[in-house]
């Protein structure tokens, strides 16, 4: 595969203008606002980074959802990671910008600067190399992400078992999209009346995971890719449904998403993981059956079991001034927050919606001013 093939065709100006015109025509047929929640921070960034708001009519509005693995991570889980990394002879590895998220005693980057061995990795399987290179150390994989990244963790678990590596353990923070949607819709004041679903989640889980939301809340759900043309086409599908008074599940990203998803990946996840009774989401609070944990037969690989009693148990709420919780629930816009851009910036984030590159506040801070002014 050539690198240039990854993006071509999905940013064509003529196509985007055509889609914008079609959306405007359909939007005129709709009474009231179309309040679309883009569950995933990746979509938030597409909308802000490519200035899509400027191409849309005023009755199309966006509400930024809880679908960023960094944003929804409560501080006590970061504190777990910091505690593990601070133990002697432990190497903590994790994906992406988890390293920048503040826990109650600072971010993993701060702990790394104090001498803890914390390594950001690009591919979970890099953990195997680190483990083999450091047989006298315990390597903790701090697993994060939604349905998209869980199969990669499952592959790592499988390889650790197959290769009989006895120095790799897991701290599991894999969460699920549908319970988060339920939590958003359970909010009495919610304005959300349509969803854009993240395509990468459905590549694994299939479009089927949103069927219940369509049925229960009578809202259109369109599973969408992340390129500007993908998002605009998904908006058109939503607005068309609204104009016709429909609420259906549609797949815009048909080039990779099926109704049932990747069965092999789902089987692999089911082999090693089970739904945990509860996970405390940052901003949303505890949500029943909203995350995964290793099955009991693999508990010897579970850092929370292995280090039970040695990990902090205090639940840490957000800074009082931080409105990440309301933003994640769709009740507030980043700019509604009193500390946005003042006490809370990407350099000195109070909340993880600002620190995460997938976060709504980060997207608004980086790209937002101009979008708002020109809307």
């Amino acid at each position, binding site marked *: 595969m050539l*690198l240039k*093939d990854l993006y071509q065709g999905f940013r064509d100006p003529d196509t*985007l203008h055509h889609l914008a015109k079609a959306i405007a025509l359909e939007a005129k047929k709709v009474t009231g606002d179309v309040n679309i929640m883009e569950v995933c921070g990746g979509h938030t960034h597409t909308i802000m980074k490519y200035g899509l708001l400027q191409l849309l009519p005023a009755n199309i509005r966006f509400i930024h959802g809880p679908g960023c*693995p960094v944003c929804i991570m409560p501080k006590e889980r970061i504190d777990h990671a910091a505690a593990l990394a601070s133990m002697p002879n432990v190497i903590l590895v994790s994906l992406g910008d988890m390293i920048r998220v503040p826990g109650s005693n600072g971010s993993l980057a701060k702990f790394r600067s104090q001498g803890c061995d914390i390594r*950001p990795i690009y591919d979970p399987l890099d953990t195997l190399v680190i483990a083999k290179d450091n047989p006298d150390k315990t390597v903790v994989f701090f697993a*994060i992400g939604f349905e998209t990244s869980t199969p990669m963790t499952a592959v790592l678990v499988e390889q650790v078992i197959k290769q009989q590596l006895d120095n790799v353990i897991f701290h599991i923070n894999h969460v699920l999209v549908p319970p988060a949607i339920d939590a958003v819709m359970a909010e009495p004041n919610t304005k959300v009346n349509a969803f854009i679903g993240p395509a990468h989640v459905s590549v694994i889980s299939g479009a089927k995971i949103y069927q219940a939301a369509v049925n229960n809340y009578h809202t259109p759900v369109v599973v969408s890719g992340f390129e500007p043309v993908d998002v605009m086409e998904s908006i058109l599908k939503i607005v068309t449904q609204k104009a016709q008074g429909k609420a259906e599940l549609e797949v815009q990203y048909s080039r990779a998403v099926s109704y049932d998803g990747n069965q092999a990946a789902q089987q692999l996840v089911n082999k090693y993981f089970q739904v945990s009774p509860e996970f405390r989401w940052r901003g949303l609070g505890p949500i029943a059956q909203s995350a995964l944990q290793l099955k009991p037969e693999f508990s010897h690989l579970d850092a929370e079991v292995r280090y039970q009693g040695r990990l902090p148990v205090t639940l840490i709420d957000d800074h009082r001034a931080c409105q990440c919780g309301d933003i994640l629930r769709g009740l507030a816009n980043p700019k509604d927050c009193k500390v946005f851009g003042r006490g809370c910036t990407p350099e000195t984030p109070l909340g993880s919606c600002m620190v995460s590159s*997938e976060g709504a506040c980060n997207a608004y801070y*980086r790209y937002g001013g101009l979008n708002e002014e020109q809307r």
Partner: protein
Amino acid sequence: MTKSLKTVQLSHGGGGKEMDQLIKSVFFEAFNNPILCSEEDAAKLHLSGPVAFTTDSFTVAPLFFAGGNIGKLAIAGTVNDLAMMAAQPEYLSCSFIIEEGFAIDDLVTIVNSMAAELHQSGARIVCGDTKVVPKGCADGLFINTTGIGRIIYPDVSANNIVAGDAIIVSRDIGRHGATILMAREGLALESELTSDCATLWPIVEQLIAANIPIHAMRDATRGGLSAVLNEWAKASNIGIDVNESAIPVADEVKGLCELFGFEPFDLANEGTFIIALPQAIAQGAIEVMQRYGHCQQAAIIGHATSAHSGKVVLTTPWGSHRYLDLPQGELLPRIC
């Protein structure tokens, strides 16, 4: 003899016979010039008129990458800092911090590529230092270079940009950052991507010779195009508008950015520079640049404006606008 040993030993940094052999057989042989070889405590230089003075340390991993190595980078980087002040690079110092066990053959390759790169500008290394640190105390090799150059054209400054100035980029952006990323992560993707690492003095010399009135000039190293434009917008108290369609980016770099969630505007360059100059002369400057190698893709990418002072605004190919902000923190891949 030092060359009979395959790796650098702690004794090579001890100030004794082994160190003398290393310096003579590796460094003096490559950087040979009378000032360096006089072996005084300090180099004796003849300077007159305004001079530019700069220093930089190089810690790249991996040390060898497509299109260059840490040595080429250490020369091009410092020489370019002088060139961007319209100063002809003349004298460089060079300090090596070498990890015990470093392969002598690799050191010779790096030093020879430094000597070759010096020929591009005519600058000379006139003093230096060598330290060897125990295994584990450095990542192979660190190089520091300091440079002095004679200022040929005195009015180049980040503070000198005025509304209406054209903004020119010398070639496609983001190659160095993308090349290092690919080498570091061992991506199994088809690509012939190479770093843009190069000495810029020859082309700057031609621009000055052509009487191009340059207001500001900067090589877009760490922080990439975004960092330079934001620094200029603040330093000159102007706004900058850039047109995304006009910014040259290699397909491979665009693809890599998609894969990792980066932006080409944020990626490092090591042989790409940005110029601000009067709009009326912009096309003439482009023609001078395109006549010389390395700048065939030189392009006007935008202009300075009195609106949105201190901010850089990017216009997308479909006509929407957004701020082009400074890159932040470590470049880490997105999670999902």
